[in-house]
């Protein structure tokens, strides 16, 4: 059964169409990335998936349960971190987690056990009785994660969970996402951090101007833009662009003290560059081939928005 089956979701605010006929199917088990530039419609889509916003059209099913028709049953299957979502500042870390656990009907013993486990995992045991008001942003976000996973949800929906976090908090959050996925939770993650998506996600959807523009695995997305592969080379003395005029080389541009030589076949380009270096008595200081990055794919898909 699919973890999320969203069909033809649309949402407009006045004359602005935030989400336009978006359909997403997320099979059970993986980590699914949802990428897009600011204002692309990611958060609006997440809000509709989590039942926080009522769509103008379309439907959402969470493990087969319709969010519109049976929101209580559907929400029981999710753990959510909304964008900028925070926890109650006047409660302690532990009280926030236990209060959330009560919404899921966990009994007292299980609530307390689970709160202890999660606080330890997120490195907050020593602060469990401190009010959240005194916490840093990173610590608050960790409590937010703790609340979202307290009931071991089959589906975890995280809207920008690592934005603005310090390295330590970010690492803990990512480790927790991986841990939850290993424990059986399907994860839907929106992020601005392309490398994070590349490292975490088995599947990625890119949304732009309210529409899904691509859905594939990170590697497939990169391969879609294979033409952007290049060789980065530097010589012991300055060279001009004429050096790179050869069949198979599409373009060459200076890149700091190096040149980026774009080619459909980087292996052939390397051979050619080695031969011209020998011919013109140039010493190659460094040479490296580079595959297209997910960031490049993202920029191309979203038109650099």
């Amino acid at each position, binding site marked *: 059964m699919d973890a999320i089956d969203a069909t033809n979701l649309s949402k407009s605010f006045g004359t602005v169409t935030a989400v336009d006929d978006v359909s997403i199917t997320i099979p059970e088990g993986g980590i699914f990335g949802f990428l897009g530039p600011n204002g692309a419609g990611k958060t609006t889509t997440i809000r509709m998936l*989590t*039942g926080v916003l009522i769509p103008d059209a379309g439907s959402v099913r969470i493990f087969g349960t319709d969010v519109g028709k049976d929101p209580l049953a559907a929400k029981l299957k999710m753990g959510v971190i909304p964008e900028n979502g925070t926890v109650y500042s006047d409660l302690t870390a532990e009280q926030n987690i236990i209060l959330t656990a*009560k*919404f899921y*009907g966990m009994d007292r013993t299980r609530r307390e056990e689970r709160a202890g486990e999660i606080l330890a995992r997120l490195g907050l045991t020593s602060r469990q009785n401190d009010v959240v008001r005194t916490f840093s942003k990173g610590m608050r976000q960790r409590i937010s994660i703790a609340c979202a996973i307290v009931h071991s949800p089959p589906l975890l929906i995280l809207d920008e969970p690592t934005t603005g976090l310090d390295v330590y908090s970010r690492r803990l959050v990512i480790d927790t996402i991986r841990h939850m996925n290993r424990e059986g939770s399907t994860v839907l993650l929106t992020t601005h951090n392309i490398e994070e998506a590349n490292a975490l996600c088995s599947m990625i959807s890119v949304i732009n101007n309210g529409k899904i523009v691509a859905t594939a695995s990170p590697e497939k997305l990169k391969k879609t833009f294979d033409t952007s592969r290049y060789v980065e080379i530097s010589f012991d003395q300055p060279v001009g662009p004429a050096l790179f005029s050869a069949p198979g080389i599409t373009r060459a541009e200076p890149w700091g003290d190096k040149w980026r030589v774009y080619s459909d076949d980087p292996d052939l380009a390397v051979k050619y560059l080695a031969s011209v270096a020998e011919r013109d008595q140039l010493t190659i200081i460094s040479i490296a081939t580079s595959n297209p990055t997910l960031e490049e794919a993202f920029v191309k898909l979203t038109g650099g928005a």
Partner: protein
Amino acid sequence: MDWKIFTRSILVITEKNVRIYYFKGPVIIFGLLFPLIMFLTFFIGRSLDLVLFFPGFLGMMLFFTASSVGPLITPWEKREKTYERLLSLPVILESVIIGDLLGGALFGILITTIVFCICAWLLHLTVMNAGLLAFSFILGSIAFAALGTLLSSPSTENPSNIMMLSSLVRLPLIFVSGIFIPLGQLTGWIYILTSLSPLTYLVDLFHAALNGDAVYPPWVDVLVIVAVILIFVLCAKGIQKRNLVKGI
């Protein structure tokens, strides 16, 4: 709908509200100080008939306490960004509205009961129908907590906007509720105006419970107050649902 999950969501929201918004020193102290000051304003140095005016004082107290904090909860949570998190938990709009209502009602009942007991002890008040009085406390608290929930519904993240709206709605209601002038002495358009305020019917119920001197039969008062509760709750739901559709 799973009624067990629904009931649980209401109770947990009520607990959350009581713990975060009501069970605070300043709120409780204000809740107790306000009736004391009102009592002194009403009765000290004035030769008012306690039997005649105490039900009005009691009604006003219940009105203010039950509807005092409720209007601020939703705007406050929207500002703190906890509202979206709350809605993503296993709750529905009705859970939030009823949870908010119950928190306000419990606060109203608690404060009014304490103040009533102190007044009854100091003033040697007699109660003609204790059961009706207790029922009136509960019904009145629910009605005015529902008003608080309705007042919290307009889309804003700024609690001060709601404070202004709340004062704009609540203060005039006090003046058209037969508190300062007994209902039996009103005539003409003032009587009609007074009959539009839900507080009028609660004060009348208190009259019936405390001294048996009510203008309307108690069942009429109860019917009107129940209708008012339903109207407030349905309006709150309508406005909040519209906010969810508009994403505000």
